[in-house]
């Protein structure tokens, strides 16, 4: 099949973009799951869409392709471009612009046959005018009615079609900001495409742009939450490359602004409990039946939240939490360390023990999740206790490994 810049299905490009952007060390030969032809086509597409960000490196294994994007410098998420690449037929685009030209005025309402006649008039000037039969036009109008841009109204037995009313766009500053800072920001980017060119007044720090690739999944999950529905999801296990089907009740999207990951927290009837799914592992979402217990499950989740550090969910809300505490010391001019504890803790309490020391303590379902944060206080930790002895041992062993790794403890490096 000839190469075409646009694509019909987003799934494959979602995988490639993730590989190129997140990793970027694989050579062409390693994309073994797909054909070499497929790889060449996808690489060429990404290069066409995001050429400015695409880089190459020659290695003994071959040429590596990667996307290198400093999201602090890019004031708009470049990955949104991928969402603007849906393919269409010659008829789709011709019909689209002619239909909206005929239905220019929101008060103009026409029947299918009136529209068909008017379309023929528009096309009559071409050497070989396209012919659209009424069923094709009806199908397109129904599609547009689903999208909310065409309204259908019955007068007697006859169906009339007219365009939806004009809706006003907010100021471009609003769109510039929320297209980067709100969930499903790509929709804001679509709206920005409708605005005149303007100077950007916002920049973004600590800005994870990869979530953009999950926008369709997140959007479907939001819709299900709004309608209090179950969904059928296909989820990939990355390590085994296996795909499983799950029926779940989506309850909340839990977003990390420190790791760049997003999770779905959902009640899984098969397990009888709430669990988490990485959204980038969800391949598809299909709406299911309404769930009468939605509010009950959400209340249960709300009860669990104060004992969650990250996304490790308990077997039930009654599962006893683990206790953890650590103490840090700091100098007289380092009071910001106490403020750091206050600012960065997500649960638990911080006590000021003296002018120079503070203690954090918490009861959470999974204390292992807290170790990365606690390690950020290395050089100040004077006490550490955890009711989970394995976690305590892990913390100690990791510290000893770090000493060795950096040639401390007698200079023995790893």
């Amino acid at each position, binding site marked *: 099949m000839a190469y075409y810049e646009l694509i019909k299905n987003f799934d494959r490009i979602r995988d490639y973009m993730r590989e190129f952007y997140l990793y970027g060390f694989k050579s062409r030969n390693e994309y073994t799951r797909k054909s070499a032809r497929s790889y060449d086509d996808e690489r060429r597409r990404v290069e*066409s869409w995001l050429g400015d960000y695409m880089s190459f*490196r020659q290695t003994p294994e071959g040429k590596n392709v990667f996307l290198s994007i400093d999201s602090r410098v890019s004031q708009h998420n470049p990955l949104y471009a991928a969402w603007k*690449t849906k393919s269409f037929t010659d008829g789709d685009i011709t019909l*689209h612009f*002619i239909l909206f030209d005929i239905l220019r005025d929101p008060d103009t309402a026409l029947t299918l046959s009136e529209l068909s006649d008017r379309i023929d008039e528009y096309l009559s000037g071409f*050497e070989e005018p396209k012919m659209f039969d009424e069923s094709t036009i009806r199908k397109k109008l129904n599609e547009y009615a689903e999208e909310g841009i065409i309204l259908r109204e019955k007068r007697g037995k006859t169906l009339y079609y007219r365009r939806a009313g004009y809706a006003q766009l907010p100021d471009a500053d609003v769109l510039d900001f929320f297209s980067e800072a709100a969930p499903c920001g790509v*929709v804001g980017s679509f709206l920005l495409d409708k605005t005149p060119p303007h100077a950007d007044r916002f920049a973004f720090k600590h800005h994870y742009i990869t979530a953009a690739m999950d926008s369709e999944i997140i959007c479907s999950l939001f819709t299900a939450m709004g309608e209090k529905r179950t969904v059928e999801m296909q989820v990939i296990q990355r390590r085994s490359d296996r795909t499983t089907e799950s029926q779940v009740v989506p309850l909340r999207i839990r977003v990390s602004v420190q790791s760049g990951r997003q999770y779905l927290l959902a009640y899984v009837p098969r397990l009888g409990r709430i669990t988490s799914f990485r959204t980038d592992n969800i391949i598809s979402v299909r709406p299911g039946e309404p769930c009468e217990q939605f509010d009950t499950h959400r209340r249960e989740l709300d009860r669990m939240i104060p004992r969650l550090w990250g996304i490790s969910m308990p077997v039930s809300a009654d599962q006893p939490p683990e206790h953890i505490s650590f103490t840090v010391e700091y100098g007289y001019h380092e009071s910001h360390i106490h403020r750091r504890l206050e600012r960065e803790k997500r649960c638990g309490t911080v006590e000021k023990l003296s002018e120079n020391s503070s203690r954090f303590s918490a009861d959470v379902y999974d204390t292992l999740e807290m170790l990365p944060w606690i390690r950020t206080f290395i*050089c100040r930790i004077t*006490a550490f206790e955890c009711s989970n002895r394995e976690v305590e041992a892990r913390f100690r062993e990791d510290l000893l490994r770090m000493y060795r790794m950096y040639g401390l403890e007698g200079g023995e490096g790893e």
Partner: protein
Amino acid sequence: MIFSELYSAYYNAVARILKEACAHPLSKAELRRIVGQEAFGESLLTIEPAILDERWQLLNADGTTPLRHEPTMPLTLLQRRWLKAISLDPRIRLFPDLCPEDPEAEPLFRQEDVDVFDRYADGDPYEDETYIRHFRMILAAVRDRQPLWIEAVSPNGKENHYIVTPELLEYSEKDDKFRLVCHGFSHLFINLGRITRCERYAGPIHYPEDPPATPKKKTVTLELVNERNALERVMMHFAHFEKQAERLDDRHYRILITYSEEDETEMLIRILAFGPVVKVISPESFTELIRERLRKQMKLQDGLFAPNIP
């Protein structure tokens, strides 16, 4: 549905082409320029022949169009629902022009559908009237390149005054704070939450001959061993930096990250968070910063752990 041709770069490019063609017959050169601006690197290879060969029957051979009006399309339900959702975000109040009312649209998401769980707790006060007033004044000043006189309190409680030309507003999702990026005498960043007074400045400005340098870019090279899913965690965690990764063998990887000099301490503690699965290889000055912290920790080691640890 988000992935739809309605939002595609091709539809946008063709809308621009038709808008121009409604005004005057379009030349090939104009068509090419518009496609270059609105679509992608290779889009011209598709769009130009599709139009000129009349497969997309929208432009006549003489560059005119059978369309009678500039193309327009109403907002889709998805767009209206997203706008409704952001109209419920507390940060919307920062902007002088609120989202237009749309009572018929259900929000795509509500605040209770999303939980940002690791955002710092001392974010900016988006509902505080003084903060909102400062934000709006600064946003307008960024637009108009209008100098400002600003009074702000430092973290140590010291009052500072600045005369600055605002450049940008920078938002950190992690800190949930806005900073004003500006040119002035010596300070490039001012936290909006620390501003106590903000006024338009019309007096003379005498900036120093050597303007304050923008923060220098630095690099750090990490080597990681892929245990505990470290590769994926590290690559995601540092995804927002400019970076390059290289595989050394089946378990070891080397990653070069470029960061801003002002963020060195933050970078240091973010690397420490990964513990023994990530090692700083270079520069030596950065390695020494890590070593220094570890040395201090070693000194505190006595009594750190409960005695009954196996």
